[in-house]
């Protein structure tokens, strides 16, 4: 990832705009591919959303994570959010947090609430907190419901999210 970081940093500094996104996104070289995905996300190249989508299935952790990050930042339709939700279990920890943030932006609020509630109950504490934070924005009453659950971790996450000092 070192070279990828250095190249992106130079592209940003030199304000290079002519980037062969398509070639990068279909490259067989892992580094080039990741470069293409990250640049597409940073420069908001929405048109490559479906080129990127296929890499969510990648067994490579780095490609999978970057693809999720990019796809999550482009997702707009309900079907995109459904796809992200389905990819959740395959994601890295960082990818999971991005999916939580992204799905909570879904136009189908009911679908988003269901997902966030599921994460708050079943997932590790980092994800619980992130899910409850996003749930708080959608509907504060839904967060309050978690204050009395039996699982102490869910209560802890709930208390953290509702702590006005943070």
């Amino acid at each position: 990832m070192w070279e990828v970081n250095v190249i992106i940093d130079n592209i940003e500094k030199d304000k290079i705009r002519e980037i062969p996104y398509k070639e990068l996104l279909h490259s067989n070289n892992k580094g080039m591919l990741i470069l293409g995905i990250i640049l597409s996300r940073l420069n908001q190249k929405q048109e490559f959303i479906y080129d990127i989508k296929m890499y969510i299935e990648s067994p490579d952790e780095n490609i999978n994570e970057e693809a999720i990050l990019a796809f999550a930042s482009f997702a707009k339709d309900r079907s995109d959010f459904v796809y992200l939700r389905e990819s959740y279990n395959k994601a890295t920890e960082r990818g999971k947090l991005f999916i939580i943030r992204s799905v909570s932006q879904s136009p189908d609020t009911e679908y988003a609430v269901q997902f966030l509630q599921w994460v708050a109950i079943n997932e590790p504490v980092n994800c619980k907190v992130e899910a409850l934070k996003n749930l708080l924005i959608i509907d504060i009453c839904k967060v309050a419901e978690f204050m009395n659950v039996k699982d102490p971790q869910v209560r802890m996450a709930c208390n953290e999210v509702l702590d006005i000092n943070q």
Partner: protein
Amino acid sequence: MNIIFFNNFINVFFFIFSGTLFCFYFITAILSIVEMKNHIKKTVDFDYRTMLSFPKLPSVSIIAPAYNEEKNIIENIKCLLSIQYPDYEIIIVNDGSKDDTLATIIKFFDLIKIERAYELKIPCEMIRGVYQSVNPAYNHLLVVDKENGGKADALNSGINVSRKDLFLAIDVDCIIESNAILKMVRPFINDQTHKVIVTGGVIRVANSCEVAGGRIVKVNYPQNFWAKFQVMEYFRAFTIGRMAWAKLNGLLIISGAFGLFDREVVVKVGGYDKTTVGEDLELVVRMRKYMYETGTKHRVAFIPDPLCWTEVPESFKILSRQRNRWTRGAIDTIKKHKNMFFNPKYGMIGLVSFPYWVIYEWLSPIIEFFGILFLLIYLILNLYSLNIIVLVLLFVITLSLMLSTIAIYIEAYTYYKYRGVKYLFQAFLCVLLEIVIYHPSNLYFSLSGNFDYFFKKNKKGWGNMTRTGFAAMKTK
């Protein structure tokens, strides 16, 4: 006949032992020089601040356990707060201090108790509360207050509370360079063939250095007699030893005072072991063992840049306690992982690094002690001629001087932190005196550590480690 056989056996044994030891030293010295040159070539033109704008960097928690540190804690935290890194948090773990450490931090940094969710992924003593500052200038700072459980337990609490990808385990009284994390993170994102699980950095002696605003502003060679020796010792250990072992991918120890760990791997292996006083060595050995057992190609990286400054013991008594603890920690780790000894399942570690630790780190002082004893007996019995003994001693002294000279040369050639003719003169004197004063002292510390481990079973503690503190050092 039997006496002759015994005599020959002793001679051959000591010859092979010392011969292989010097071969190891020689090889590691050469490897270090080569590796150091490579490192400098790769990094000399690189401005690490560039990394601050990198889009893909792991996040880092700095975990610093504190126990009865009220005198220096504010300066120490200020130093940590001046770190350059895009995504980090500082977790100070108050390990049930009996003094006013917690109250001092709360007052100075405007802390309030917050609700913080965490999982007890690694067992630790009860966490009484987590504090955060109301001042946005300190929003990277978290303070965990917990029941006393020792350094390993405090680190485990910090790991439980942490939410970042990597964590830097650091002694709260260390001074780290502002770009230390940027440099330490590099191997984690640079290595394409191996998973980097830990990175260590060079620790230097801060005694007598000038400190301002939590930073070392002038490096001085220590005035204290014992600290002078430790400068040379740290040169050799970090510049020659660890650099070479890292090159061979056989590094087993990352100092407990300064190491950057992959949090996920540490959690998987169960965190720091609270039952040993050598928790730093033990953790790295366990992590490497785990990686071999899961068939993961991995690496423990080492950065030769001086990134962390620490105050070393200034009295014989405190130094003795520290080295005694190091010895007990090493024996404990060796015992716990004895199945790695010459075990090909653990690759380089099982076949080279671990046996090296057993033979040349643990047993070496014991063998040396018996060597001296035999030498004296043989001298009394007139079995050796004085000429041969003088020749052997000269050989040992020359090799010892050569190693120290290489270490001093590498330091001067690369980082050049210590300067001036006065320093060079003192360093030379120190290297000479080391053979007759510091080395025998170290031998005594190791033997007493062995004695305490095997015959004083209840001796498990760290012992009191009194320090002067940077606040008391010359500051601008």
